[in-house]
C-alpha cells in the first residue's frame, strides 16, 4: 500500500505533466483525474524502489545473453 504523499510532490508534477501533455487531449476530465491517481501510485512505487541503496556492482537481473551463431 502506498504511503500518503503531499499533493504537490514535484516528482509527481513533473511526470504527470509528461503524461497529461501527451495524452490529455484523448481523455475526459474524469478520466484525467483517474489517470493522475495512477501516475501518483506509479511514482510512489518508483520512490519505494529508489529508497533501497544499491552499489555500483548491483547489476540488473536479466536474461540477456549474446546469440551464438547457428550456422
Amino acid at each position: 500500500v502506498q504511503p500518503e504523499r503531499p499533493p504537490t510532490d514535484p516528482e509527481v508534477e513533473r511526470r504527470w505533466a509528461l503524461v497529461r501533455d501527451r495524452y490529455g487531449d484523448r481523455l475526459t476530465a474524469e478520466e484525467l483525474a483517474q489517470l493522475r491517481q495512477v501516475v501518483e501510485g506509479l511514482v510512489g512505487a518508483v520512490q519505494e524502489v529508489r529508497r533501497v541503496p544499491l552499489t555500483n556492482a548491483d547489476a540488473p537481473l536479466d536474461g540477456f545473453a549474446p546469440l551464438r551463431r547457428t550456422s
Partner: protein
Amino acid sequence: VTPEVVFTPVRRLAELVRAREVSPVALAETFLGRLETLGPRLNAVVTVTRERALDAARRAEREIAAGRYRGPLHGIPYGAKDLLATAGGIATTWGAAPCRDQSFDADATVIRRLDEAGSVLVAKLAMVELAGGMGYRQPDAAFTGPGVNPWDPAHWSGGSSSGAGSAVAAGLVPFAIGSETWGSILSPAAYCGVAGLRPTFGRVSRHGAMVLSWTLDKLGPLALTADDCGLVLEAIAGPDPDDPTTAREAFRHDAADASARRFRFGVVTQALAACDDGVRETLLRAVGVLRQLGTVEDVTLPDLPYEATARVILGAEAASAFEDLVESGRIVELTAPEDRYTPYARDAILAKDYVRALRLRGLVAREVNRVFSTVDLLVAPSRPTVAPRLGQEFRSALRGTANDVAGALGNLAGLPAIGVPSGFDAAGLPTSVQLLGAAFAEETVLAAARGYQALTDWHLEHPRLG
C-alpha cells in the same frame, strides 16, 4: 462415458483411457458438451474447438487401439487460455475486443507439446483482456464478460486466467493451461478451488504466447490435483530454441508416495498478517496439516519493496509490449473503462526507474535464496481474500491497493509456486494455500502439495451448477 469422468483427475482418466474403458472420442464429446452448455453461464469460453478436438480424439483412439500409447495425457481433453496461439483458423483473441479476429499460422510451443503428448484441445478459454496488464480494477474486463465463479455466480472467478480456473472447477475440462505474470494462475486457482502451478521462469516455453512482460510471464497448468499439475508440467516443460529463456533441463514428475518425505516449511508472517480473517483461519488450519509433513517455522522476509519493484518492471515492459495498441488509441475499444486510459500512466516510468527495479530484483532474488537455505518451502495464502463480488472494485497489489509479498517476490525471482484448496470461508467461497519453492524445485513443491492433498479432501469438493 459414465458421469464419473467429470471431476475425475487426469491420473485416473489416463488409467481408464489406457485400459480402453473410456474412449477418447466419448471423453471429448462429454467435455465439449459441458463447455457448450455450461461454459456460457460462467463466461469461461471464447472458442469451443470441436472440429480440432474430435480429429485429435479419433487419432488418439486409433493409436491407443493399435498399441501406440503415448503417456498419461493421451486422449485427455484440455483447455488453453486464449493467449496461446493456435493454427487452423482458430482465433486467439487475448481476451480483448480489438484482437477478437486475430489468428496465427502456428501453434504455440505449449499447444504443440500437448499435441505431441496426445492431449485433445477442446477450448480456448476466456481471460481478462491482455492478461490484465492494462490496470483493470473490476472483473468486467473481457469482451466475453466477467468470469463467473462456479461456487457462487455473484462472485468473480479471478484472473487473468479466468476461464482456466472456472472451467477446471466446473468440470468443463480436466485441466487447463494458464499464464501468470503476477497472480494470474494462483488467483483463479484460489478463487475457484482448484490446483494451479506457476512454474519457475524458464521452465516452460512462452513461444506463441501473448507477451505482457518478457521477464515475468510464465505458463502453467490448472487442474483438480497437484499430481495432475505435475503430469501436465512434464509434458510442457523443457528447452525450446524458439524461447531463449527456457532452461536446458527437462522436468520429470515424481509421482512416488511422498508421505515419508519431510519438508521444512516457513510461514511468511507478512502474508499471514495481510489476509482477511476467513482466509487466515483456513491457512492456519492448513499449516496444522503441514506439520504432519515436516517442520514449520515463521519466516519474516527481508524488508524490501517487493510489490513496488514488480509494479515498475511490469509497467515498463507492458508499456513496450503494447506500445502500438496504446499509442494508436485503440485501447478505447477495451471493455474495462479504466483499461482505456490507465496504460498512458506508464510514460511516467523512466528508463532509469526500470533498470533500477531490475537491479533491485537481483537483490530480492539473492535475499530470497538465503531464506531457502533454512526452509524448503514458503507458505502463504494464494490470495489474501476470497473471490470478490462481481460489479465491485477489488484490491490489487499491481495497483498498490493490496499487499502480496509472496506473489511479488515469487514472480520477481521467477520461483515456482502451487496453490491448492485449503477450505471455505463462512460464505462458502474457496480458500487456498500457496507453497512457494526455490528455483527449479517444482518436484519439492509438488511433493509437498501432494502430501497435503493426501491428508485433506478439499480438492474433492466440487460446485453444484444445477
